[in-house]
């Protein structure tokens, strides 16, 4: 307190009061004393609304609320910068944050317009690199990969020192792969290696392995034991190549990552698992979904869903759930309100791919239907029989466990068959597998509850 008073006293002797308030706010922020910081900024706004620091104060407050997850409050302050201060020094940052809020909320079109406006209105902005990055993300989500590459090429040719440069090259590799140019995709990863972005080395290696596999047609040939445990069942892969394995009878989920194994107990039998980078691992115990922060009951028209055997989350936080009891598919908003319910036919399970395509396996697992998030069907496959499980790699290639777990089919992201093989020729055993997962490096993991091992196919 004494130090603060002394600082304020000195400040008042040497600089104008509005500046003093702004600087002391920054100082509190630097010390992570956010409450005091916000107080200073708010005081500045109240007492000196015409100050040269007023827009900066609004930005700091808006950014704080954004980081706290309070999008509405954040937007209120950020909108004031734009409406009250026009083209101030903080306007570009305000636009960027507003765009991010809109993106998180799932308002893709609004977010795109905001980011687009930013680059036109502020061609020399310090945040142009991030602006281009978000524009590329939105374009990718819309399936406009070439457009995404246009934005990413701006980062590549101009901003090699940007914090988004590594991610933009990974994104560019993905987009190049999706437009059928795996060689150009590899050049993006090679550029990352040459730029010495060493902290991404594992991810770069995973991308390289994956891309080389598909470019040079390096088929899956080998299998080895990856992990031993009783009754391994459902599989999911997560960040840093962590493998999540449900122990069917043991009521826990084993989390296996290089050099580390952990366990998480489950309150009941796990019916489905889903992992997404932003939200972590979720699983269904039938009548509720368990997330890292707690449990969620999904109520549709007054009744809770009873047997959720398949679910996923979209990038905007919507939850899609299939209730085996009703046979219907439900879509809930981020706030857990029912948006719609759909009868998609005789659904066995569904999964979502990174690009938002939903893969619905139905009709006793003999049909695979691909739908958009709006629910429209765009493609259907009838030639795969008894599809037991589906997984996707970061490049959107598709891995199918078919023939009741005896066969493996790998399709490229645009549905060309890369490899179709009897698993016995790889595993040298007659075991059938019920569950499948794929990691960042396109390594395949197989499990079946009656075996004691999880196999890695590569």
């Amino acid at each position, binding site marked *: 307190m004494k130090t603060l008073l002394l600082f304020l006293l*000195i400040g008042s002797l040497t600089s104008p009061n509005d500046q003093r308030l702004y600087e002391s706010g920054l100082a509190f922020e630097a010390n992570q004393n956010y409450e005091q910081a916000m107080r200073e900024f708010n005081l500045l706004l109240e007492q000196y609304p015409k100050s040269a620091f007023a827009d900066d104060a609004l930005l700091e407050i808006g950014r704080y609320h954004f980081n706290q997850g309070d999008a509405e409050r954040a937007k209120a302050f950020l909108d004031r910068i734009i409406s009250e201060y026009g083209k101030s020094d903080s306007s570009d940052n305000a636009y960027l944050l507003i765009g991010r809020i809109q993106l998180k909320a799932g308002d893709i079109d609004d977010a795109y317009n905001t980011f687009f406006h930013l680059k036109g209105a502020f061609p020399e902005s310090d945040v142009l690199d991030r602006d281009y990055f978000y524009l590329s993300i939105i374009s990718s989500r819309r399936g406009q990969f*070439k457009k995404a590459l246009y934005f990413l090429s701006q980062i590549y040719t101009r901003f090699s020192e940007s914090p988004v440069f590594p991610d933009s090259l990974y994104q560019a590799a993905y987009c190049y792969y999706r437009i059928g140019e795996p*060689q*150009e995709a*590899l050049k993006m990863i090679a550029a990352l290696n040459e730029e010495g972005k060493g902290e991404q080395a594992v991810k770069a290696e995973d991308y390289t392995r994956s891309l080389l596999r598909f470019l040079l047609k390096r088929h899956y040939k080998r299998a080895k034991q990856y992990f031993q445990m009783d009754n391994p069942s459902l599989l999911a892969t997560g960040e840093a190549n962590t493998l999540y394995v449900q122990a069917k009878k043991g009521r826990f989920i084993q989390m296996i990552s290089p050099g580390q194994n952990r366990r998480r107990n489950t309150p009941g039998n796990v019916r489905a698992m889903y992992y997404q980078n932003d939200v972590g691992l979720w699983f269904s115990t039938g009548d509720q979904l368990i997330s890292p922060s707690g449990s969620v009951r999904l109520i549709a028209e007054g009744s809770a869903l009873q047997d959720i055997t398949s679910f996923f989350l979209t990038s905007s936080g919507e939850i899609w759930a299939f209730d085996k009891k009703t046979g219907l598919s439900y879509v809930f908003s981020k706030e857990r309100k029912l948006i719609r319910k759909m009868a998609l036919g005789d659904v066995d399970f569904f999964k979502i791919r990174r690009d938002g395509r939903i893969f619905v396996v139905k009709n006793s697992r003999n049909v695979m239907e691909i739908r958009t998030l709006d629910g429209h069907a765009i493609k259907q496959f009838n030639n795969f029989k008894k599809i037991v499980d589906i997984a996707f790699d970061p490049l959107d290639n598709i891995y199918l466990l078919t023939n009741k777990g005896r066969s493996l089919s790998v399709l490229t992201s645009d549905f060309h068959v890369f490899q179709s093989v009897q698993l016995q020729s790889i595993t040298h055993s007659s075991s059938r597998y019920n569950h499948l997962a794929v990691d960042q490096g396109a390594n395949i993991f197989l499990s079946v509850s009656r075996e004691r091992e999880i196999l890695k196919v590569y």
Partner: protein
Amino acid sequence: MKKLIVFLLIATIPIFGFDVVSVFHDNVQIFENSDNPENAINGFQKIVSAYDLGEIKGTDAFGYYLQSMEYLIVLYSNKGDTKTVYTIFEKIIRSDPGHKLNKFFISPKIIRDFENKRSQMVGYLKIKCPVPGLNVSAGTLKLSPNSKGLYTTLAGDLTLRIGKENYQPVTRNVTVAVGKTVEVEVDLIRTLASVTVLTDPTGAQVFMDGVLMGETSGSAPVDYLKDHSDTIEELGLNPSTLSNYFVINRVEPGDHVLELKKNCYKPVRLSLPKLEKRDYQFKPILLERSIGYLIVEAGADDQTGDLFLDSRRIGSLPIRDLEVCSGEHLLKVAFENGTFIKKLKVEEGEHRVVKAVPKPTLLFTGIKPLDTNLSTVRQVTNSLEKQFQKIPFYNAEMDDSYISAIDGLLKGDNKVIENIRNDYGQSLIILGVEKRVKLKRFIDVYVLNTELYHQEKFTLDPANPDSEKRFVEAVSIMPKLVENTAGIAVIRDPDRNLPVVISSTVEGVQAGDVILSVNGNQCANEASFYKTLVVPETKLQLERSGAALEVAVKVETTPVVMRQNLNSLSYNSAYLYFLSRIQFPGTDAQKAGAQLNLAMCNLRFRRFEQAFDTLSMVQLPDRPGISAGTVLYLKGICYKEIGSWIDLQTLFKNYHFNDGATVINSRGLRVQSLIDFTFEYLRKQ
């Protein structure tokens, strides 16, 4: 009180600044030429008093002391002041018992009177010693022998000290009666050796056991030349450049090393083993010349510059076969558009060719302080000067004109920039302004150049050495202009830890080939693969489907294009660098690289028309990699930046260059793809 102090100060001044020589000669003039020669009495008296009081000392001062007294004798004698004359007689005899008065201006009568007085005061010593050339002193008085070999001394009890260089001195107590001669027999014991050298040429530094003893000088005595003419001829010495004796006394017996050094001559080292207690005189030593030759030319035919060698102006370029001493030299060529500075070592007999290419001058105008507390400003200034080494300062005094120069530069005052350009040529200008943020002091450093006004700002935190390091690197480290390429793009296969080919325009190399070695060297990754490529041909050992094969690929040097928004670069500094590389290019590829990157600087400064014009001058072939297609694409960027989308589309629609043209480097994004993406962007807004 003040007045008193001033007076005392003034009063003390003459004692400290006494110019004996001037006073003596001035008064000799008065004595010889004036109508009132007695006016010289005061002057001569001053010299005598000064010596008596110890204010002037030494052999020369003693000489003036004695001479002054001689003049006083005459002056007082002319005045009829016999008493004073005799007082001075006594003083002279006491100072130098054997002194002879100058008969040229002193009358025979005075001389007779002096001799009479002397005969009442002195006795004589006859010293018998087998060693010649003795040093004899009686008390504090140094004694010299007269023509008869006798030492004149004051009568009375004396303590004699008899000695000689390299001998142990001897002390004797004697009593000398007036007019009598006392015989003293002495035997001196030799304790040390002496070494005498002569050098050709003169002016060589003499080192004994690594210690500098002095320099040879003068010229050889005539007697020596006569007596040693055969030796001189035999050794090929030049009698006119042969030095006088250089004697090193007090040399301990034993082993020694003598070295002779002179600029432009080879050093000579002599071992002197087992020296005994005697005099050694060596044959004269001939020093051999050690020179090389410099040929200094300008980097381009139409460039003129002035050569300075070791800060001495030599002349205008070109300079051919300039004889220089072997060793290190500092070479500087002042061009109109900058300077070329190089430290070089010239070996003996070497003909060293130097191509001088002007580098823009780096100029630091200083830091404008926040207030009177200059500690931060000084700290940063000293540190930057050290890191940039010899930054020329423009008006570095802390006065108004210096402060206004900084203000002028910040405002973009063309006059200030013009002055700098006139004084220093093409220059990079760095200046700072101190500021305070949250009680901490920072320096905003601005960088601009004399060729165009576009400030860049870097903020230094004096407490963080990294921020300064980053700034210095931004100004000093320049981007690459060229690289070696072979039309092959590779990526490190993590499973093999070897590069694998992604794409190839070369016959015999396919996608999927694993690179086992490059010219016999194993490369673990992309960077080492590209670094190991050698112009004009490189051998690759490949593995394809398990089989090994060898392919020789053509390697070329091609330009590299830097990016537009690097924070780790000062574009002002880079601008001048590229400009100089265009003015004085090496290969075509280097020139093209410089032009392309100069265009990128212009893009960075948002000078789109200038960027376009620079790109129009670039001549590159139509082929994969950085090529004609690259230039077209960058021109499109210029259109894009100014919002001329129609022109951009027209340009891109007519793209007819190689499909493999790229941006940034040979394995960067393909121009054709970028054009494709641009149209996709424009199609769906």
